[in-house]
């Protein structure tokens, strides 16, 4: 019987080695962030990591929210491939400080190019041309080719060893569905990595997820861990927790 469910986040990340390339589902703030996998990785201690994520952590709704910035604080990261460092130079994220100090290597990528590099890495396309970035610093050192008279840059796929993804529901086959804007990078990262680990709210019986609405087919998912109720991390809303530092409202 296929059963990818694991009991703990600790065992799900136990085999990650130093130097691994890890994709982390993330946009801005806690929605769609595999919070417990990130914390388990910090405890596990693998170092020299390359992190691929929309932001380098420490950004979004609550600046003091412990997202993947904790992996920078614990000096586990060697390189970050990202689109966003911190909202303001007066409030630099741990990653921005370490990049400025030369401790972490930065590959800054336009967000659409990052998404497509991840998607291409997932689907066997080694590289692609995009108009985005021509005539800017992003174009430095890249091959340029004209299509229909418009200049395009050659961009290369990214491949990950591990993807940490956040989903709403899974079955034991690993079929995933998401909730709202939780989806963001998670489905394409799930498709990409050699080992994909999903952090989910609920694990349901086989057949309970309508096959018409599966977003991530189960073959892309290797390990599944359900989030236990944890009063320390309100998954749903607790105004006092999320509202601090929020410029949103």
């Amino acid at each position, binding site marked *: 019987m296929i059963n990818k469910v694991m009991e703990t986040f600790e065992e799900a990340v136990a085999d990650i080695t130093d130097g691994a390339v890890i994709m982390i589902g993330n946009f801005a703030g806690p929605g769609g962030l595999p919070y417990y996998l990130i914390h388990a990785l910090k405890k596990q201690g693998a170092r020299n990591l390359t992190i691929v994520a929309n932001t380098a952590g420490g950004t979004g709704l609550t600046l003091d929210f412990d997202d993947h910035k904790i992996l920078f604080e614990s000096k586990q990261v060697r390189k970050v491939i990202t689109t966003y460092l911190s909202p303001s130079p007066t409030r630099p994220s741990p990653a921005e400080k370490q990049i400025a100090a030369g401790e972490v290597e930065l590959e800054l990528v336009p967000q659409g190019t990052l*998404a497509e590099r991840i998607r291409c890495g997932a689907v066997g396309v080694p590289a692609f041309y995009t108009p985005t970035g021509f005539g800017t610093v992003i174009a430095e050192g890249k091959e340029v080719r004209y299509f229909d008279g418009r200049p395009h840059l050659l961009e290369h796929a990214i491949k990950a060893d591990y993807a940490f993804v956040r989903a709403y529901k899974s079955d034991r086959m690993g079929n995933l569905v998401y909730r709202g804007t939780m989806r963001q990078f998670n489905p394409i990262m799930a498709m990409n990595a050699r080992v994909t680990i999903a952090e989910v709210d609920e694990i349901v019986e086989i057949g309970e997820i309508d096959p018409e609405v599966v977003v991530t087919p189960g073959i892309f998912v290797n390990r599944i861990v359900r989030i236990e109720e944890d009063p320390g991390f309100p998954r749903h809303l607790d*105004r006092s927790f999320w509202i601090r530092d929020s410029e949103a409202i």
Partner: protein
Amino acid sequence: MKERLPREVIAMRIARELFDGAVVNLGIGIPTMVCNFIPEGITVIYHTENGALGFGPVVTAEEFEERADIDLINAGGQFVTPLPGMCFFHHADSFGMIRGGHIDTTILGVIQVSEKGDLANWMTPGRGVGNIGGGMDLAFNAKRVIAATEHITKGGKPKIVKQCSVPLTAPRCVDLIVTDVAVIEVGKEGLVLREFAPGWTVEEIQSITEPKLMVADDLKEIEL
């Protein structure tokens, strides 16, 4: 110094550029405010980079307890409200919509904009690093790019310049510049002053604009 239009009025003027059924992506800052001023009878479909189309207004402070949902945010990290008919999709599809030319209008903030329509809005001078986010894909690929900005910097320097001195977001991408004193179209021959804020003369606007402005035949006061 003469009175400038408040940021809300810049947003109000830009809202008049949107048409019924337009697919619109709003950047952070003044652009975000545009959603509050959509003219009656016009329905626009909002797109956000993090994978949603057709969502409703931003959750207000009064509504927070009841309506804020961490799984329903826009690209600025604001909580937004659900609307019947909205849909969700992943990031590669979201930027497929942008790169593929399916976004009718994007409204973006400005650090500098040049007379050729070059836009710089991702790296402030002297910082050394910056945040590209989704702005570069939007600036390159949306069908129409509207730049929303104060006319000059807090230090009094022109933001509309001959040539940008900070790293570009995209060259030759801006179609219309709406500021707190003027509406300026980026034409093939250069910048065309189309509208002015109440009380401002062409000469006064030119004096705080680096490149030479051409004046539209039908130059008029900004109408809201």
